[in-house]
């Protein structure tokens, strides 16, 4: 027998029937006192037959209706015997009883279904192949990309709004805190727009093209792959080396 619905049902019976009848035992009719164990019996029978529709109807409708028998006959005893907190307690216990009973009935139904459908099955775990190096590399790339997409705006937000030396510098430059707040708002909106545009054109659009197997992108990628497989350096390498060397020489010349 399930514990929670049984205990809550017995509590409800005590609260709604036994206690009021006991308090008003002088005025209550004898037949009502004789009928007082009836809801408890109905509850126990309903719990025994809860897998059948009759038992479920008894538990959800019959038992609560029988408990209202005392109230249906009119007020018993003085009103002070029924204070407001007692009504609240009765309502709470009734709601808990209904919730526990519904949960128990649904659990019974699901276990019955499981028993019927899965009883003859033999469950065996599938051997999941470990992901290939390419897949692992791709997953790592996506994770790094995601982390970067979170880290960069967070860094900008920290630099604009939370970094104390920066805010102090803004305040020194602009004079009042209101102007600093306005500047922070403008900088934040500009950086958000910039980052959103970069995110779309640099991350989302290439990924979307890749997922949708864009013909132009596939052609470019195959061409790039062919070029990459050649072991000869491209002219860009020499251009970049020249730029770097000339830049360093100019910097040295300027610093001397």
């Amino acid at each position, binding site marked *: 027998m399930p514990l929670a619905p049984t205990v809550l049902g017995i509590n409800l019976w005590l609260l709604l029937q036994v206690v009021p009848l006991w308090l008003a035992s002088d005025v209550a009719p004898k037949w009502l006192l004789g009928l007082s164990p009836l809801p408890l019996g109905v509850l126990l029978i309903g719990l025994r037959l809860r897998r059948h529709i009759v038992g479920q109807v008894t538990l959800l409708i019959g038992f609560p209706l029988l408990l209202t028998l005392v109230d249906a006959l009119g007020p018993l005893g003085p009103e002070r015997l029924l204070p407001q907190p007692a009504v609240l307690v009765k309502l709470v216990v009734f709601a808990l009883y209904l919730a526990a009973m519904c949960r128990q009935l649904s659990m019974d139904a699901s276990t019955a279904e499981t028993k019927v459908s899965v009883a003859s099955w033999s469950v065996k775990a599938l051997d999941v192949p470990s992901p290939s190096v390419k897949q692992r590399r791709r997953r790592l790339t996506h994770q790094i990309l995601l982390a970067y997409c979170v880290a960069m705006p967070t860094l900008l937000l920290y630099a604009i709004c939370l970094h104390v030396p920066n805010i102090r510098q803004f305040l020194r430059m602009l004079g009042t805190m209101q102007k600093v707040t306005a500047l922070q708002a403008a900088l934040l909106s500009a950086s958000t727009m910039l980052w959103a545009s970069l995110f779309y054109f640099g991350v989302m659009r290439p990924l979307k093209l890749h997922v949708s197997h864009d013909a132009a992108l596939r052609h470019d990628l195959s061409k790039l792959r062919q070029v*990459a*497989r*050649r*072991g000869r*350096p*491209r002219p*860009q*390498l020499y251009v*970049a*080396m020249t*730029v*770097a060397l000339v*830049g*360093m020489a*100019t*910097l040295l010349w*300027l*610093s001397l």
Partner: protein
Amino acid sequence: MRKLPYFQILCALLLLSSLVFFWQCISHLARRDYVAAGMLTVIGIATLWVGSELARLSLSERDS
């Protein structure tokens, strides 16, 4: 005997040195030396470019 991956080592060195250039660029910006900062940015980008080209060469060397 295993061959030393020269291209890979050189590529890593170049990528790291480009970061040093960018760091120097920030420090020059803090000193309001904008010409030097701009030149260091160009040098950093060029170094990154060379590093990426060498990475491509190291990959083709590894595949062959």
